[in-house]
């Protein structure tokens, strides 16, 4: 089963998200929370191999608070409750902070 990656830092200021993408595996789920939401606009998003079927999600409230537009063709809006659910739907969790 897949890994849930919780990304909390902006890749414009730290390379946590870069490191996350180094080890992301097929069918993993990435959820952007806190300043991780700024990664929605980062060019690293385009480097993700579409064949890997990585799901990209963002906590809607966290993006809204920062006035970050969510391109729903790429990112799924989720709630904190969804994040709790994803914690158990995936086999393990890595927090990138």
């Amino acid at each position, binding site marked *: 089963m897949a890994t849930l990656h919780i990304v*909390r830092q902006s890749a414009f200021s730290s390379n946590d998200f870069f490191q996350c993408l180094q080890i992301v595996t097929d069918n993993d789920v990435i959820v952007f*929370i*806190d300043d991780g939401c700024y990664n929605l606009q980062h060019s690293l998003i385009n480097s993700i191999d579409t064949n890997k079927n990585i799901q990209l999600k963002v906590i809607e409230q966290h993006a809204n608070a920062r006035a970050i537009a969510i391109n729903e063709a790429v990112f799924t809006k989720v*709630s904190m*409750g969804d994040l*709790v659910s994803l914690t158990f739907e995936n086999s393990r969790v890595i*927090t990138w902070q």
Partner: protein
Amino acid sequence: MYRLESKTVNKLSVMITTPPYNNLSVTALNYVETALKAGVELIGVFFYQDGVMHANTNTQVASDEFQVLSHWQRLHQEYKLPLHLCITAAEKRGISDEQSTQNIHPIFTVSGLGELVELSTTADRMVQF
């Protein structure tokens, strides 16, 4: 309200490493509260690194700012949520359980890393914040 569907795999433990004055701690609190409301069995929260500063009774927060500590207190009381404090990390930061200098909020349990072993081996998932 969101409800957890699977009842087989739902034991959770959480580690918090950010201090109470950091907004990241609000997210952690939110996550924990959401999990509790969804019926997740939260076996404990372990405060490590700067997270231990949550336990300091001398902390003062302006009344117009988010009162993260009173929310932890509420969760502790409503859900009997165990809040474990790594005492070695705490002592390094001026938080003490010695009688003469005691400044640990009573909602916290003085613990060590052995408790972390227990939490991580008992829980189905451990999430770090």
